[in-house]
């Protein structure tokens, strides 16, 4: 089993911190990365990590894997809620604008129609509704995913870039209370992780 990091790190009791007296350059860990061969394997692995009680960890795959949310035990997405609010704002705002303009700001007699000719206001109520729903969904997703994040520790890994091709990874973060260099590494090896490496932050 080969190690990505110099032995010095192993001598420290707690991987997250090194006491100042230590002569080595202080390094902060991001966490540990392990590669899996197929969706099937990583699916099983995820269940095990979930059962091991880890909280701050994630699965990296070139495409969404069916059932993975459940396998990882993460709850519902909040994107829908944000989109819904956006939609209400859009439609409400659209109609209010039209009503105000046609009844109060410019009460013109047009084609003998009433000032509040609401049937004609449907399209411009509908379209802003759609628009803001879409905005809510997309920008909400960006917000929830903290994107864009151009810099990320994982990009330091020399294997990781293959996640967008045909490789599957599990990353467990050092800030997870249950994180421990040996224990975590052991767990990953047991569930069949390859090229296990420690990733600096």
């Amino acid at each position: 089993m080969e190690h990505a990091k110099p032995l010095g790190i192993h001598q420290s009791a707690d991987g997250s911190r090194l006491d100042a007296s230590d002569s080595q350059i202080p390094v902060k860990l991001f966490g540990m990365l392990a590669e899996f061969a197929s969706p099937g394997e990583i699916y099983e692995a995820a269940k095990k990590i979930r059962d091991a009680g880890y909280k701050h960890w994630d699965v990296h795959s070139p495409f969404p894997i069916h059932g993975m949310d459940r396998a990882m035990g993460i709850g519902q997405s909040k994107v829908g809620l944000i989109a819904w609010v956006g939609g209400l704002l859009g439609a409400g705002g659209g109609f209010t604008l039209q009503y105000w303009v046609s009844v109060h700001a410019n009460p013109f007699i047009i084609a003998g129609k009433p000032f509040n000719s609401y049937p004609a206001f449907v399209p411009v109520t509908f379209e802003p509704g759609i628009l803001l729903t879409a905005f809510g969904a997309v920008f909400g997703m960006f917000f929830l995913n903290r994107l864009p994040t151009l810099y990320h520790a994982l990009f330091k890994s020399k294997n990781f870039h293959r996640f967008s091709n045909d490789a599957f990874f599990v990353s467990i973060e050092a800030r997870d209370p249950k994180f421990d260099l040996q224990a975590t590494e052991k767990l990953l090896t047991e569930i069949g992780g390859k090229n296990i490496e420690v990733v600096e932050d």
Partner: protein
Amino acid sequence: MILRDNTLPRATLVESKSFGEVNEIICAPTNPVRTPKTWHILFLGSLSLLCLLGVMLAYLVWEGTGIWGVNMPVAWGFAIVNFVWWIGIGHAGTLISAILFLFRQKWRTGINRFAEAMTIFAVMCAFIFPSFHVGRIWVAYWMFPLPNSMGMWPNFRSPLLWDVFAVSTYFTVSLLFWYVGLVPDLATLRDKATSKMKKVLYGVFALGWRGANRHWQNYERTYLILAAVSTPLVLSVHSIVSFDFAVSNLPGWHTTIFPPYFVAGAVFSGFALVSTLMIIARKVYGLEKVVTMHHLDNMNKFMLATGTIVAYAYAMEFFIAWYSGNPYERFAFINRALGPYGWAYWIMVSCNCIVPQLFWWKKIRYNLLITFIITILINIGMWFERFVIVMTLHADFLPSSWGYYRPTWVDWLTFLGTFGLFGTFFLLFLRFLPTLAIAEVKGVMPEASPHHGHHHQEALTSGGQH
């Protein structure tokens, strides 16, 4: 679902067996070494047409709409014909990505990216016409509700204003939809990139995507919502475009059948153009393994269906015109078929109603050449459909006001120019972006299922869970 994936013959979705190969195939075009000569030639052509468009529009703004063929009574000429035609073409993309997505039509992954891109560029072309056909473009911004020192606001009862909102919304949402779909694939390109430049550019637009499942979760939900809102949107847009005519009071325009019939026509022409371009791209870039004959077959079936709907609409228009007993309506339709623009009417009928019926034969659906020709005929026919509708203007209620419309050379060159705009953007897309949705294609491969190879019982349960 997953069950069905396993039972489907492999050839129907992706012929390739490994994720890596899919990557290779789809990313290949972005590799400069592999860029074919034809690309350079086409790009040069499109670019010059684009310049032509610029010149024509400048001339128009300088001289006024008088340089076009429009007149009284035909106050809308080529501009609106082209607008409706382009916007119609733009409908295929969203339809494929949204509606087929909702119906879990996995074969869509072979073409959706392609079609979405097409949508965006088509809508750009479409947008030019309504905005430039006005007499005083320098005050066209009065159509937007902006506070001003005149205390004047737009008139929300006008279908043209609905157009402004519908089309701009449609463009924005399509763009978002397209981009969101692109993010994971941009990440792929980022990670494949060798040159620093590409790493940075792709990197920036990939937003630092790292395929994390916690991201995928929100991502998929977003994609689902976008699909859910785009579906009514895409239907609304062409309905609203049809209101430009349907809400008027002119014989031949004032018909309730327009919205569904316009939407069907839009899908019809959209699919036709997608096939046209796909058949070429597929050949040039050797995408046969991911865009299989099965895809094209499905497209052709769609064209057959929508074409038949359109044919039905034409017939029904005529029937209702007769059935209404309204002499103006009756005349308008007889005049369409037998009047001075009869020739256009018959081009329309033969291209839109008769030709697509060939697709009843499997042989023809699977024959690339014939399919290619038919798709082009369909788009010609659909252009003439809009021409026929707009030309209904030339003879309405009072015979004394009847007139005749002749396009000028400017009309023609402007229309030609929009192909330059479309082509330029489309070729750039082919050259620098993944023409197919990499992640999605991988996602529908049997190998992508975590239960690939396991026996069905578990497949069913986990499938049910999803």
